[in-house]
C-alpha cells in the first residue's frame, strides 16, 4: 500500500467521521432536513389485487426486482393451467413473456400470420434479446383474467434464430433472465404497435416461421390482434392501469411484500388518493426530471429497472462495480414534471458495495450512473423509487381520473 493510498483512506475516514458527527448533531438537535413521508396504505385483498414480492427471484440473485405469480391456461380452459411463480413485474414494458420451460404440460395456441407460426425477437438495450413463438393463452392474475392473450413463449429451440436481423445474445433461460418471465404492465397496450403492422414492417420484431424441421423464420408483419400485449388491456374491468404498492425500506431486507392493484379509480381500493398525476409524453413515454439543477428530459418511472439510474455531479462511483458508493447515505431531491403535472420526490442513495454485501434482495437507495455525464439526460426511476410510495401507471388510450393517459402518479414528498 502506497503512502498516497494510506493518505486517501485516512482522509476518507476523517471525512466520514466529520459527516457522522454532523449527522449526529442534527439528530441531537431533534430534526433533520428530510421531508415527511406521506402516509401509505398497501391494499391487502380484492379481486383486483395480486401479491408481489421483492425476494431476489428464482435464482436468489436479482436485487431490487418485484416478482409475482400468474396462472397460464390453455385458451378456453380453466383446468388445463400452470401456475408460474417468480415472474418479474415490469411497468416499463408491455406484454407477457414466459419461459417455455415454465409452462409444464400446458399447451398454448400458436398465433399465425398467413397460416405460418408467428415468433418474436424482443431486443434490449444491453445487446440481449428474447426469442420465441407468440402463442395465445388465458392468463389469470389475481382475480382478473386476460382471455386469448398473445404472449411470447421464450424458447431458443423453437426455430433457428434468424441471426441476420435478430442479433445479440438470447436471454431465454431462468439463469440468464433471473426470472420465469416478464409481466409487462406499462403505459401502452401493444409491444410494437403500428411499426410492425405494414406488409414490410418499419421494425424487425415479428417473424413468420416455416413448419419444416428445423424451422426457419423471416421478418413479418404482425396485426395488432396478434402482437404481444399488456394483459391489463384485455381484462374486462380495471383495465386502465396499475398501482404498485411496496413498503418503505431503509436498510437492506431479504424479502419485502406488497401489492399490484389493477385499475385506477375503478374500484373503492384504487383511487388516486394523495397522488399527483404527471402526464408523460405520449410518443416517447417520458417526463422531465430536474435534479442538481440539470434538466433531464428523457426520464421515466420503471419497476423493471433494478436501481435508480442517473448522472450526478456530486455522488462518488464505486471502485469495483458501476454503481454509486457514497460514504454515507445521501439525502437528495428532484422534481418530476410532465406536459401536465409536477411532483417533487425526496430519495436516498446508499453505498452500493454495502448494499450488495448484505446479500439481501430489497436494497434501498441502490443507484448507478446513467451515461456519459453530462451528455445524456435521463433519470430512470427504478424499483427503489417504489419503496414507500404507491406508484400509478396508466395505459395510453384509456380513461383514468386526474389527467390524460398515459400518465404516472405518486404522492409527492
Amino acid at each position: 500500500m502506497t503512502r498516497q493510498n494510506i493518505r486517501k483512506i485516512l482522509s476518507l475516514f476523517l471525512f466520514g467521521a466529520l459527516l457522522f458527527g454532523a449527522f449526529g448533531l442534527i439528530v441531537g438537535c431533534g430534526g433533520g432536513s428530510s421531508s415527511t413521508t406521506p402516509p401509505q396504505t398497501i391494499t391487502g385483498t380484492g379481486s383486483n389485487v395480486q401479491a408481489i414480492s421483492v425476494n431476489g427471484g428464482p435464482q436468489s440473485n436479482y436485487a431490487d426486482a418485484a416478482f409475482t405469480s400468474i396462472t397460464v391456461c390453455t385458451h378456453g380452459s380453466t383446468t388445463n393451467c400452470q401456475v408460474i411463480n417468480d415472474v418479474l413485474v415490469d411497468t416499463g414494458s408491455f406484454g407477457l413473456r414466459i419461459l417455455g420451460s415454465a409452462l409444464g404440460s400446458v399447451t398454448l395456441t400458436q398465433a399465425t400470420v398467413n397460416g405460418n407460426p408467428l415468433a418474436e425477437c424482443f431486443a434490449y438495450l444491453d445487446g440481449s434479446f428474447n426469442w420465441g413463438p407468440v402463442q395465445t393463452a388465458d392468463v389469470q392474475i389475481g382475480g382478473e383474467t386476460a382471455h386469448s392473450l398473445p404472449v411470447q413463449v421464450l424458447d431458443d429451440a423453437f426455430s433457428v434464430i434468424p441471426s441476420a436481423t435478430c442479433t445479440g445474445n438470447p436471454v431465454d433461460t431462468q439463469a440468464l433472465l433471473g426470472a420465469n418471465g416478464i409481466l409487462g404492465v406499462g403505459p401502452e397496450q401493444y409491444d410494437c404497435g403500428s411499426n410492425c403492422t405494414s406488409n414490410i414492417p418499419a421494425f424487425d420484431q415479428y417473424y413468420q416461421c416455416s413448419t419444416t424441421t428445423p424451422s426457419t423464420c423471416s421478418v413479418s408483419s404482425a396485426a395488432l390482434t396478434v402482437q404481444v400485449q399488456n394483459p391489463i388491456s384485455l381484462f374486462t374491468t380495471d383495465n386502465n392501469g396499475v398501482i404498485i404498492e411496496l413498503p418503505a425500506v431503509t436498510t437492506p431486507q431479504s424479502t419485502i411484500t406488497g401489492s399490484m392493484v389493477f385499475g385506477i379509480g375503478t374500484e373503492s381500493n384504487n383511487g388516486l388518493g394523495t397522488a399527483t398525476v404527471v402526464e408523460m409524453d405520449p410518443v416517447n413515454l417520458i417526463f422531465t426530471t430536474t435534479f442538481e439543477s440539470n434538466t433531464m428530459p428523457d426520464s421515466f418511472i420503471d419497476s423493471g429497472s433494478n436501481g435508480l439510474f442517473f448522472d450526478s455531479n456530486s455522488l462518488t462511483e464505486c471502485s469495483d462495480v458501476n454503481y454509486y458508493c457514497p460514504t454515507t447515505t445521501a439525502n437528495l431531491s428532484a422534481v418530476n414534471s410532465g406536459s401536465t403535472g409536477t411532483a417533487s420526490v425526496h430519495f436516498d442513495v446508499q453505498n452500493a458495495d454495502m448494499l450488495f454485501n448484505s446479500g439481501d434482495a430489497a436494497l434501498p437507495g441502490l443507484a448507478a450512473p446513467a451515461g456519459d455525464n453530462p451528455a445524456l439526460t435521463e433519470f430512470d426511476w427504478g424499483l427503489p423509487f417504489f419503496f414507500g410510495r404507491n406508484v400509478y401507471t396508466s395505459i395510453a388510450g384509456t380513461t383514468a381520473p386526474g389527467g390524460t393517459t398515459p400518465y404516472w402518479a405518486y404522492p409527492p414528498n
Partner: protein
Amino acid sequence: MLAVEVQREVTVNPMKNLICFGKNLAKASLWMGAIALLAVAFPLAASAALGGDAFSVQGDQIRLRASVKTTKADAYTVQEMTAPTGTVVREYVSPAGKVFAVAWRGPFLPDLHQILGASFESFTQAAHAQKGRRPGHGPVVVKQAGLVVVSAGHQRDFFGKAYLTDLLPQGVSTGEIR
C-alpha cells in the same frame, strides 16, 4: 464548429420504393435484385459500422431501411440515417475514412450488433460483467481501453453513443457525438 458546410445528399429508401413499386412486379424484382446485390457487396456481418470504413455505412443503411443525409464538419463527416420508425443513427466518419463514432436516438432500438460492429462483443461482455454479473435492467455504460459505449432509455425512447478513442480525429470532443 459542427456543420461548416451542409450537403443534403442522397435520400435513398429502398424499402419505400419497394412499396411504391409493389404493383409493378418487374420493377419490384429489379429493386429486389439491387438490394440483394448491395447485400452481397456489403454483407451484414462484415459491414461493421463502428471501426469500419465509410463503405460500411451503406450496410447499415440497408439494415435500417433508412434515408441518409450527409453533413460535413471540420474534422469529420456525419452520415445521418433515419429509419422508418423515426429512429436516427448518426455515423461519424474521419478524414481517414473510418467510422470512429456512432450515436442513436428514437422510439425503437437500432440493431446494436450492426452499428457497433466488431465492438459489439466487448460491449455485451462488459455490460454483463459491470453489474456484478447479476441479472437486471437499466442503462449500460461501458468505458474500456479504446472503447466507450453508452446505451440508455426504455421502451419508446432509446438513445446512446459509442466511440473508439484511438480513432477520434484530432480536436474532436466526444461531446459532439450525439
